[in-house]
């Protein structure tokens, strides 16, 4: 094992508790292994793959570049806001931009997304104003965007639960008759995101079973960022994750999660299968969590910095930049304009975040039940009277 902290996770090393992981995974897992679908190398070279190809033009690649830069900006800006006490917490996506933009851009408007807490890039592709995400992390709401506006569900923090929601939603699409009609504007699919750690949850495995059993139009998109807080991927699995799909009865693909062309191509193919009624696909986007788990975490406690250095060479944005520059597809003006746009986005977030309306105390009682409840109404009244008994109450309500 190359990448966990030397004294950490000793039982995962060869011998003590089982086979040498090298025997199971092959020699150099840190690069994703030979099954990895890659269309743009870390050095910015386009390469062919027998099954998957990127079918958009260079303009689209420039668009992806812009998307990834803006997504990274959302992330760094939110991280900074948290550091300044403006957000309670933030879950960074640094390093996972290509996985999120490639898959997000492969969606059609009618497709539906069930995210974890880290899919800020996917949210961006669904047209959700990132300020709405900040509202959740600032605590001024509980995640209250309308999921039906961009077909983008609630951030799910209890890990794995959303994969079942996605599967059920996909079963609903079948009942709605919007799967396999042959009409590209109608046929719909679901993508549900989850992490390598979540892959150990019963929910996720049961979602696989249901999706397979009903041939549901759902893409299980796993961002294997190598870590579940402090636990390395080897704690969750002894075979490459995508290979699990086979046992459940649907295809699994491992894609270079830092290659936006490949994540787009693979997601597009998987979504198309789903929309056509051919059932679920497991996509393992092989990537790396460059940042901390969240802003409250300190990854130097459990992993090596040289590992991070290794992954920096595979940066998802840099390789696209190299490709565009080397092939004369974009000049300095192009990059400068995007930087200016990112600057503006940052400003929007900084200003907007501080201006988000604070919730009022009596909001506590809202939305506990659809249509309210007489008991909760009574508690609200009692509480209002209690607040009124203080002179300062007006300010709090």
């Amino acid at each position, binding site marked *: 094992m190359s990448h966990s902290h030397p004294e950490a*996770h000793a039982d995962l090393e060869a011998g003590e508790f089982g086979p040498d992981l090298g025997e199971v995974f092959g020699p150099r897992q840190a690069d994703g292994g030979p099954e990895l679908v890659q269309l743009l190398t870390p050095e910015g070279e386009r390469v062919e793959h027998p099954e998957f190809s990127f079918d958009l033009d260079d303009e689209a690649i420039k668009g992806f570049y812009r998307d990834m830069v803006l997504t990274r900006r959302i992330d760094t800006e939110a991280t900074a806001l948290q550091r300044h006490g403006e957000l309670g917490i933030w879950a960074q996506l640094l390093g996972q931009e290509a996985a999120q933009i490639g898959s997000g851009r492969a969606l059609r408007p009618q497709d539906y997304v069930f995210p974890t807490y880290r899919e800020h890039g996917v949210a961006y592709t669904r047209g959700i104003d990132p300020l709405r995400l900040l509202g959740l992390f600032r*605590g001024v709401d509980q995640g209250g965007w309308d999921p039906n506006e961009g077909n983008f569900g609630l951030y799910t923090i209890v890990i794995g639960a959303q994969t079942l929601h996605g599967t059920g939603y996909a079963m609903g699409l079948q009942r709605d008759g919007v799967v396999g009609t042959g009409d590209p504007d109608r046929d719909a699919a679901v993508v549900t995101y989850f992490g390598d750690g979540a892959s150990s949850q019963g929910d996720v495995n049961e979602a696989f079973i249901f999706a397979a059993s009903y041939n549901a139009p759902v893409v299980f998109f796993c961002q294997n960022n190598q870590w579940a807080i*402090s636990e390395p991927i080897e704690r969750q699995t002894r075979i490459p994750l995508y290979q699990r799909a086979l046992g459940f009865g649907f295809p699994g693909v491992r894609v270079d999660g830092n290659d936006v062309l490949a994540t787009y191509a693979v997601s597009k193919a998987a979504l198309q299968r789903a929309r056509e009624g051919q059932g679920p696909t497991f996509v393992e986007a092989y990537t790396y969590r460059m940042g901390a788990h969240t802003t409250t975490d300190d990854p130097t406690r459990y992993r090596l910095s040289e590992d991070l250095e290794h992954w920096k060479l595979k940066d998802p944005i840099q390789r696209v930049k190299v490709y565009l520059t080397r092939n004369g597809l974009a000049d300095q003006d192009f990059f400068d304009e995007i930087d200016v746009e990112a600057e503006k986005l940052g400003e929007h977030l900084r200003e907007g975040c501080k201006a988000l309306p604070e*919730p009022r105390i009596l909001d506590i009682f809202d939305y506990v039940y659809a249509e309210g409840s007489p008991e*909760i109404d009574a508690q609200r009244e009692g509480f209002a009277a209690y607040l009124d008994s203080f002179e300062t109450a007006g300010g709090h309500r």
Partner: protein
Amino acid sequence: MTATPTAPAGTTDQGRVITYSEAVREALAEAMSADERVFVLGEDIGVYGGAFGVTGDLYHRFGAERVRDTPISELGIVGAAVGAALAGMRPVVEIQFSDFTCQAMDQIVNQAAKIHFMLGGAAEVPMVLRAPLGSGTGAAAQHSQSLEAWFAHVPGLKVVMPATAEDAKGLLLSAIDDPNPVIVLEHKLLYRTSGPVPEGAGRVPLGKTAVRRRGRDVTIVATGVMVQRSLEAAERLAADGIDVSVIDPRTLSPLDDAPILEDVSRTGRALLVQEAPGHVGFTAEIASRIVESPAIYRLLAPIRRLSGLDVPIPYAPQLETAAVPQVDGIVDAARSLMKDS
């Protein structure tokens, strides 16, 4: 946490003060040193030292086999612990947030709690499940609940809520000794509080209610972090000439109700404080024990319950604070009890 006026049993030396979190760790370390069969398992408890830092350096002291980072599956963790317990081990599970016991409910409620009964006593499930509960840390609706009443409702489970550092250690040691599955719910806000835990402090028996303070006018019964808040309220009430008892059941199941009934019979007033939503909460059980006993004839005022609102814990700090009892609310409730009688 400040010293409690009534020193818990077995205290010989008030000298050493440690945090609640250190006290839990000390209990784990002592139990593991004393008994080969004891091991701990959970998420991020190894090199990371636990999401709340409770296991700390135990991984380095006891190794990966006895301080086990598990795959991210609470059902798996508890189920494996049940199996290990059946094999004669003494597993101590850490669930990262008590909210995620929801993932493990079958193993806790249908399995751990029932196996001894269904086997006619032929096997025991001596496991402990520790988990942080409660609000106050800005962790929002799915990471802040107080679900103690759920567990206390299940025959076969013992349920413990330590409110002081000394109890955090002593009750955990007793829980590890106990031949039954024991759920130990540690309040997140208490982890960093400190209290006297004398060197060599040992077991605090399960099923023994503690009287934290003895007063004349009102009996406050409180659990978890509400014990400390009630003690603070007691100081303020004392300044007003209202003299209250503060009683901490410590073990919710089995419940030692005698000291509560006795105290209520003396004061004639009961104020029952919990963080969890009031509806079908644990203090409803206490209220019912009072009215089902002769203490009812001594009541000078209706029993008063002060609980969390019947809402999910909100994220915004000012809303979160408003959703559960605070010291002010306890003081007000005690005063109004005095007025009502």
